[in-house]
């Protein structure tokens, strides 16, 4: 059996991603936990290797083929437009990419702060509005509060962070769940293994969907 390498996203979706693999009956190494400092973990008897990566980088690893498969949010796929196969909606970590801002504030400078410059640019062009996009790497909610930008484009799941900072969700750009992605060459060369992996996850998701 050939080795299958899977890139896992650290952070927000890690635990749910891990749980869905384990629940679907995929042998996950015991030491693959949120606390681990190791970057590469293997389940040798199952010929599986996992490595942990920043969510934004998962699609890049998979595009270059250093990982055969990856689990990644749809937000990353939309932002990075990497050349990978998007195989399966895992239906975990649901959230949305939204436009938010201060309530009742006229937009003056048309500036948008975001971690997702290309999603933002594409969205505003699509609705016929020219904006100036400022890329930030975190604490996006700060930008309208201190006057760096009128509005932000960011991930919203419960909306709590927005509320706590006095911001309101203005428009939803797209809803987001996590996806199973595959490298183009791996998908074609290891299709039997990839198909088995896919079937296992898909069956589990369908079962779970029925229970809910």
């Amino acid at each position, binding site marked *: 059996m050939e080795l299958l390498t899977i890139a896992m996203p650290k952070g927000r979706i890690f635990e749910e991603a891990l749980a869905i693999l384990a629940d679907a009956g995929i042998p996950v190494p015991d030491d693959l936990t949120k606390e681990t400092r190791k970057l590469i973990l293997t389940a040798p008897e199952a010929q599986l290797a996992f490595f942990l990566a920043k969510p934004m980088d998962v699609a890049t690893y998979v*595009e*270059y*083929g*250093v990982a055969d498969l990856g689990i990644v949010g749809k937000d990353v*796929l939309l932002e990075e437009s990497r*050349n*990978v*196969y*998007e*195989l*399966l*909606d895992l239906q975990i970590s649901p959230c949305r990419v939204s436009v938010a801002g201060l309530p009742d504030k006229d937009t003056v400078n048309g500036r948008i702060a975001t971690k997702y410059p290309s999603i933002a640019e594409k969205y505003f062009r699509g609705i016929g509005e020219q904006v100036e996009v400022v890329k930030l790497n975190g604490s996006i909610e700060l930008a309208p509060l201190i006057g760096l930008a009128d509005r932000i484009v960011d991930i919203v799941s419960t909306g709590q962070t927005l509320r706590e900072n006095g911001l309101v969700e203005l428009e939803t750009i797209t809803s987001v769940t996590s*996806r199973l992605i595959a*490298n*183009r*060459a*791996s998908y*074609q*060369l290891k*299709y*039997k293994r990839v*198909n088995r992996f896919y079937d296992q996850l898909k069956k589990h998701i369908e079962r779970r969907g029925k229970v809910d």
Partner: protein
Amino acid sequence: MSPEAFEKPIGFQDVPPKLARKKREIESRLSHVFSSWGYQEVMTPMLEYAETVGRASAISEDKMFRLIGQERAMLILRPDQTAPIARMVNSLLQHEALPLRLFYHASVFRTQEYAAGRRAELYQSGVELIGEPGVKADAELLALAITALQACQTSSFRLVVGHVELLRGLLESICPSEEQRAQLTDFLIHRDYVGFEALLQQLEDKEAVADILQLCRGLDHKEYLEPLLSHSSNRVVKAAKQLIRIWDILEDYGYESYLTVDIRLLGNINYYTGMYLEGFADGVGFAILSGGRYDQLYEQFGRPLPATGFAFRMNNLIETCNIECMEPKKTTLFYPKLQRKAAIAKSKELRELGYTVVLQIDDTQTDIVWREE
């Protein structure tokens, strides 16, 4: 920002001796295979007119490097080799007997996004079979690609074949809305199978949808295609027949184990008109070759001709060829200045015997000596 002395434009690369040796070795093996199948090498200019070759090319215009020529015409760096060859075939080679079998080794140029890590200069080695319609030509190309990959000692590889008409027919038969069909195709172009499947599940004919999803799994035996021969759509039947005949021919070569059919595989849909193929090999995350049938290109150069072709992407192929290219053993010939003429004569003699000889003055020597490294 002004460039530092060591920098190259984004996406361009140098080729140091070791890599150059391997590239030339692969090219020479490919040339040998292509020639032995009756293909002849051609070369075309690096610059073309944006209005002619640029417009006809399968590559989108925003990916082309543009410059302004002497006559103020807009020029492009050739973005692919197929369109320039079509121009040549329909002008310089228009009186040649058809079919024409041509090959090339050339760089093509495409602009890349910043920090995407993609190449702007791509080395390609490819073939075009012009003036021959039908599956015989398509199968010849597949077999030629496999033979060429074997000659380059490529790690375990696979050719994946799709068919524009097969997909079009299948989608037409289950999805009456042209808009939705365009959306489905768009999902496939972006390799978003989640979106593709979700939209298919919304369609009425659940049974037909399930059939299509079943077909979407890697088809590694031609028997999987046989049910399509009784499909209600003529388009589907015709395309399936073609794929099966291609498969039959490849069986005669003994090459069928290298093949998979993926009905979702799509190239540029405005360009390819029939079979489309991509090749993958162990150890490289990207396609090592792509190509297909493009029967509509030639009419843009004044004479409609059926044509089919493929190109190896050398930048990717080189990583998966298990070819060792040793640096040739060097012999240094030391000589005292006064014996230069004799040293030159000796070096000629040694080179004729196959040695690689470098001349080196050495006045501590009293006579000519040579040493192999």
